[in-house]
């Protein structure tokens, strides 16, 4: 456990360390910056949106705000999982194009909160798959587990939002 990156969680002020909330997708663990997590909700059926990719499940009402819900398994091209009692939605603040949006991601389950130092973040290798990896901030090892730390601003940013927008615009012109 020499390179165990878990430090005292009670001490988030440690220089160069950020806290991450991790979640599970098909037994893999992913981390997101905890400061961007607004709340964690149970799954509820969203209202589907027309002509959007399947990973955009629709929108739900969060205290009067209309929030889109994105299924992470579908986003990463993984097998879909039936939504069950442990399925959770993590509400994230996504900042892109000088705007802040709130979006929910559907994950299998929420796992832990870890402090991970920047030094312990390794750059992601070339996955050589069709999945672009520009939204992976890096890989960390915590308690012998691999955690993929995600950059949610890229993952849920303009690329995801604008998808098909161009087609639609052209169509309506």
């Amino acid at each position, binding site marked *: 456990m020499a390179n165990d990156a878990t430090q005292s969680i009670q001490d988030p002020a440690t220089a160069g360390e950020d806290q991450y909330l991790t979640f599970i997708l098909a037994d893999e663990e992913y981390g997101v910056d905890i400061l961007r997590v607004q709340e964690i909700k149970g799954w509820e059926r969203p209202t589907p949106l027309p002509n959007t990719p399947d990973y955009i499940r629709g929108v739900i009402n969060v205290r009067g705000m209309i929030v889109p819900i994105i299924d992470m398994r579908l986003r990463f091209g993984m097998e879909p999982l039936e939504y069950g009692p442990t399925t959770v939605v993590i509400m994230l603040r996504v900042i892109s194009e000088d705007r802040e949006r*709130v979006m929910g991601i559907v994950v299998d389950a929420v796992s832990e909160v870890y402090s991970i130092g920047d030094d312990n973040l390794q750059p992601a290798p070339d996955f050589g798959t069709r999945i672009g990896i520009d939204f992976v901030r890096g890989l960390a090892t915590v308690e012998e587990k691999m955690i993929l730390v995600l950059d949610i601003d890229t993952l849920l940013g303009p690329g995801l*939002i604008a998808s098909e927008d161009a087609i639609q615009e052209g*169509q309506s012109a």
Partner: protein
Amino acid sequence: MSMDMSQFTEAFLEESFEGLEHMETELLALNAGDEETLHTIFRAAHSIKGGAGTFGFSAISEFTHGMETLLDRMRNGQQETTPEIVNLLLRAVDVLRGQLQAARDGGEADPAEAAEVRALIEATLGDAAPDATPDALAPTVGGNVDGSGPENGPGDSDGTPRGWRIHFRPHADLLRTGNDPLRMFEVLEELGELTVHCDAEGLPATLEGYDPEASYLAWTLELRGDADRADIEEVFEWVEDECDLTIEPLETAGDSTGAHPPADPAPDGSGPESTPPGGEDSAAGAPARAASKPTESSSMRVNAAKIDALIDMVGELVITQSMLTDISEQMEEDPSRVEQQIERLRSGLAELERNTRELQESVMGIRMVPIAQVFNRFPRLVHDLSGQLGKQIDLQMEGELTEIDKTVLEHLGDPLVHLVRNAIDHGIEMPDERSAAGKDPTGRVTLEAYHRGGNVVIEIRDDGRGMNSDRILEKARAAGLLRPDQNPEPHEILQYIFEPGLSTADQVSDLSGRGVGMDVVKKNIRGLGGNIELHSEPGRGSRVTIRLPLTLSIMDGQLLKIHDETFVIPLIAIVESLQTEPENVKQAFGKLPLYRLRDEYIPVVDLAALFGQAEPSPMPDRALLVVAEADNQRVALRVDDLLGQQQVVIKTLETNFRRVPGTAGATILGDGQVALILDVAGIARMTSGRDTRAA
């Protein structure tokens, strides 16, 4: 002494902008000899001058002074009201607006323009009284002035000074004897137009030894008008022995600008301090600028009656609430009488519903402002344009009091300006051309606003030459919007004017050819949830109709069920709902269902399929259709069930996502579920768009 003046400065600026608008409107309506209007304009100029002086915008107050003098002469009949003078005053209004904006936002007003306009005003003033010496540029009527004063009369053409300069330096004890300079000034103000400058040099530099009951200040007052010297002396009668007082006729005081720092310039502007306004402005205005916010304030004025009504309603709400509390307590105390209490509870809830609805309406009403706020800029625009183009134009405005949501209003200005410009530039012909066509040489442009249904309708009409649909067709083909073999109806051709890249003007003029086309106008109107249509008759004129939602945030909706999803369709878009009759269900190309409604074939939309949420299903013989219309296009939505009608609060999907074609946003239903609001115009476009894609 670093009191925060910024809030007062802000109020002054806001009022001044309003005053300028008034001046502009009145100037445009000004006819020769219309004294009442002149008075109004004069008062507006006067208060701007006074305020500017108080807040240290000396360039503004100096500049306004010249205007004021000119206006004063006009109302005294010494200066004729000519179109040239009115134009000059309008230019002056622009300069003032620039200066005020500079004062508000920081930045520089254009000193050259200010100097030029000022010089023109001075030249006009000079012309009006060519034989007068600078001392008596504006001799006033009256003539009942006590001419005994030694200072009185040098060089006056009719022996009457046009006002008095009063130096008033109270002795330290003046306040202790119960005298108040302010009251005296108020009396003076009744005698004529009063300008007050305070000299605070007598104030001790530190608080040490400062006597709060002593008077340290001195004043220089300028009283314009035909007041009698004796009247002024009477005002100071009680304090004669407690102050140093000199009263001298205006214009003769050589020391007027030397000894008393912030004194007004002589009305003819020939005083030693008539430096170019720009330079002075930057110096004097600087501190105030730093304090004022650089952005336009987003405050709005609300009719006090609206606020009062709101307070009343909140009062009722509180009563209803306590009634409901009371009912619940009684139910607990005496369960045997629950039956009766339920009856009361029901009526209480009905009351609450009424309160809520009224409150909602009133709160929305606060945001409603009369459309006049946008219309007001047009008389000036038309005035300027007709002058520039040599066209004669009569602008008619109707329904200015029609109220519209402030947000809608704010985005309405630019499109409307563009449309009115177009009407004048391209629509209205030159006077001789009109005469030759047997029309009144004066063209007419009408702006009208009215409410219809839940919409505000704005029409811009002109009686000009109308649109040349052949040219539009030609251009549309050239721009590739139409295939050569396509021959749309004349009415449809006209709508191509709203497509990007189409301008039918033979020569692109300075006015309309600014690269902002009708497509931008349409985009803006669409962005507000509205529609725009054009009608035109060659030789008779054009009419642009803009339909806008009353408010952007609430609308009446019809709830529908389609494939287990609940949707909301704007009630206004619904033409009718009907049960299909098998003989009227038609099919085109084997897959495109049409429904024959009276003499019209309407495309039937399978919304779930269009939205990519289900496989297209064949059209059953019996189905429920909702026929909806937008943008002159009708579509029939196949729905599974019609639910209730209700007011819905529109929420945009763009806040956290993006615009979704086919929807006009979303709303939250009573059970907390989100329902999408359908955009009928968008669905119509998607329907036709999908068909071409599928082909």
